């Protein structure tokens, strides 16, 4: 090739130019993408409407509203329904984009100064909220909190929210993100199966084991779990600890205390309780190696009585769930002498909605968020996405919800202020991973509860040396 003294042969020339083309084409687009930042397109917003009590942000009638939502486990039908309602009320024209690639679609728009008006900034490819907040890209949403609620103009929007919503969306002292989807964690079962077998909802761990035993005798697995992701079984273990030992036990773990696990009788009792399921052979066959969809689908096929998960479960399994399955939520049953009642649940909010500071129709975006916090829109979400929102009693009792969501609503009401939420998974991912590994070994019967405690404490002690540990503390 080319060694016969003729210089570059024709064929090589073609080959090389093709290779060059292959490299340069994507490079060029990359370069041009970079070049788009900086310039201020100075998009002029529509004329402002008059600020009144009904229109606290001064939304102009007949403007445009640009909405981008993460199209993940909740789909995006709810957002389309919202936009239709918004357009009807304000005479606006909404443009809708449902996507999983939030960062790819929006980074350039933020840099170019023409971001959308409302964004559900969620999913694996979200743009980190703290990064946006630090860059001054987010509108402060405190004005939404202080605006009158649509349901009861005598009250402010902030009075309609479940506790914790404002704290969660606050960055550097400013409330900038509305975490909208309220998630509860616990166990789930089929109402139909339980009715058929004449089993009652277990409230204590002994009752729970009893049903697992009966299930096993009937040829059904007792507890299924998403073995490939020990995250889920950790919900059971950690909730048992929090319920038995109270909020102090939970905070000790989050605050990396030297006796968070070791020397904490509540922790040992909780792990031993879960291990009893393994030892008595009450797990669904093979569940330790299954993914979340595999095990949840097996559970939907009545191969197991219980499965742990968050309240996204119903929507996630929509297609696999038989019509008459009658999905039911169950708070993790309590051990003897627990400090928290059976009704207590782990709960927290997800899916941050934001309004960009440079949004063309910022008033429209803020009004959109205010509407989201009305009972009407919250009900739309519960119906379309089969999940709860951060709006207190946010679902119209006359509306028929899917059974799983309905039972979660009941559980949230029953729990009242008895909710708790671990922070260590967000603060210390390495520690979380190590505890998950230990749980996987426990469920596979390769280690004993005492060894689990030892490993979990070692993970805590290791995290305590993390430089981040100085910044994180809860009281």
């Amino acid at each position: 090739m080319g060694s016969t003294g003729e210089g570059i042969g024709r064929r090589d020339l073609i080959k090389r130019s093709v290779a060059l083309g292959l490299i340069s084409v994507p490079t060029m687009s990359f370069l041009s993408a970079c070049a788009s930042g900086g310039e201020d397109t100075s998009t002029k917003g529509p004329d402002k409407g008059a600020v009144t009590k009904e229109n606290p942000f001064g939304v102009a009638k007949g403007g445009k509203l640009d909405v981008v939502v993460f199209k993940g486990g909740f789909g995006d039908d709810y957002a389309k329904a919202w936009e239709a309602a918004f357009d009807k009320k304000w005479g606006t024209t909404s443009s809708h984009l449902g996507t999983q690639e939030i960062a790819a679609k929006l980074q350039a728009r933020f840099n170019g100064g023409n971001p959308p008006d409302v964004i559900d900034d969620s999913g694996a490819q979200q743009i980190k909220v703290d990064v946006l907040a630090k860059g001054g890209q987010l509108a402060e949403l405190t004005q939404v909190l202080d605006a009158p609620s649509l349901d009861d103009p005598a009250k402010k929007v902030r009075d309609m929210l479940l506790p914790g919503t404002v704290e969660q969306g606050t960055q550097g002292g400013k409330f900038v993100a509305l975490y909208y989807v309220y998630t509860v964690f616990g166990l789930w079962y089929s109402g139909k199966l339980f009715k058929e077998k004449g089993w009652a909802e277990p409230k204590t761990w002994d009752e729970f084991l009893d049903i697992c035993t009966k299930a096993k005798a009937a040829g059904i697995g007792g507890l299924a779990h998403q073995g490939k992701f020990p995250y889920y079984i950790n919900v059971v273990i950690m909730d048992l600890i929090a319920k038995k030992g109270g909020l102090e036990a939970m905070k000790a773990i989050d605050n990396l205390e030297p006796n968070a696990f070791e020397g904490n009788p509540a922790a040992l009792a909780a792990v031993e309780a879960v291990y009893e399921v393994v030892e008595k052979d009450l797990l669904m066959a093979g569940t330790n190696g299954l993914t979340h969809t595999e095990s949840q689908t097996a559970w939907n096929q009545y191969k197991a009585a219980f499965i742990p998960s968050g309240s996204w479960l119903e929507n996630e399994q929509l297609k696999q769930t038989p019509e008459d399955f009658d999905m039911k939520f169950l708070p993790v049953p309590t051990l003897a002498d627990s400090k928290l009642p059976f009704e207590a649940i782990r709960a927290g909010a997800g899916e941050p909605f934001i309004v960009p500071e440079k949004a063309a129709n910022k008033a429209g975006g803020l009004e959109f968020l205010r509407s989201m916090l009305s009972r009407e829109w919250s009900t739309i979400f519960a119906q379309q996405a089969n999940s709860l929102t951060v709006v207190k009693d946010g679902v119209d009792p006359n509306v028929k919800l899917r059974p799983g969501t309905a039972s979660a609503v009941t559980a949230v009401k029953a729990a009242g202020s008895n909710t708790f939420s671990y922070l260590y998974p967000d603060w210390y991912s390495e520690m979380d991973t190590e505890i998950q590994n230990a749980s996987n070994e426990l469920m596979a019967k390769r280690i004993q509860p005492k060894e689990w405690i030892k490993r979990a404490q070692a993970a805590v002690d290791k995290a305590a040396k993390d430089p981040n540990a100085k910044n994180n503390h809860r009281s």
Partner: protein
Amino acid sequence: MSQVAQGKGRIGFIAGFLFLPLALYLTFVIWPYIQTFGYSFTNWSGQSPTFDFVGLDNYAALMKDEVFRGALWHNLLLLVFVPTVTILLALFFAFMVNVGGRSGAGGVRGVRGSSVYKIVYFFPQVLSLAILAVLFGAVYRSDEGGLLNGFLTKLGLVDPAHPVEWLNQPNLVVWCLLLVVVWHGVGFYLVLFSAAMQSVPKDIYEAALLDGAGRAQTFLKVTLPLLWDSVQTSAVYLGIAAMDMFVLVSTMTSGQFGGGPDHHSEVMATVLMRNFLYFGKSGYACAMGVVMLVLTMILSIVTLRATRRERIEF
């Protein structure tokens, strides 16, 4: 145009084509390597532009990191077994498909139906690693729904209440993964070796046959020496693949970026990714990257040196 002018024009022409690719290569390949090297001496978190210089701390921590050492051990295991098993199987099949048949006098050909085999063997290579992971996920599934478990249960070898949790067994998981890689690779190397075998003149084989060589002798004394270049290249490629293994391990095994159960299938790339993207220890992860780069380079050089032989011309 004079000779000289033509020569000059040609150099400009060549330089024009070489400059841009070289510049791109330097910017997008070499420069990141240098950056990685630099970051490996810092405590960069990967999430903020600020970091401190920590000297050799990351490398010192790496020496003590049991998870990384375990990962290195798995990579070495794979390094020994992936190339050996794949190449041996591929050579055997290629030989049978091309030369192994015996029919008629002096005929050098493959076993019956060899053209079909060649195509069938190549099938796995067409599949992307992602599909492969899904496919073998179904094979190794840990309940009765899994292909292996279903099969073994039917045969009565496995108790349906306690199926084998293939990828959740500390001492099975690496071998399960090895099988996938070999299954995937054999077809490609079979075709590669077939092509090499076909370029060997038939008279050599005929001569061997006339001298009364059996299949084994023909293979060892004739085929293998003539294929040595291909085998050597394959070994390097497979060795590099064994040093990586990221896609399969991260999608098929449990844990963030795979490596489970309890680090028993960890490879260097999975530990690296977890530290880089999940634990926020990017500087530490860069140190791992440097170690991987050095190991891979040593591996390539050693393989090429150790397998160097006299070239046989034909």
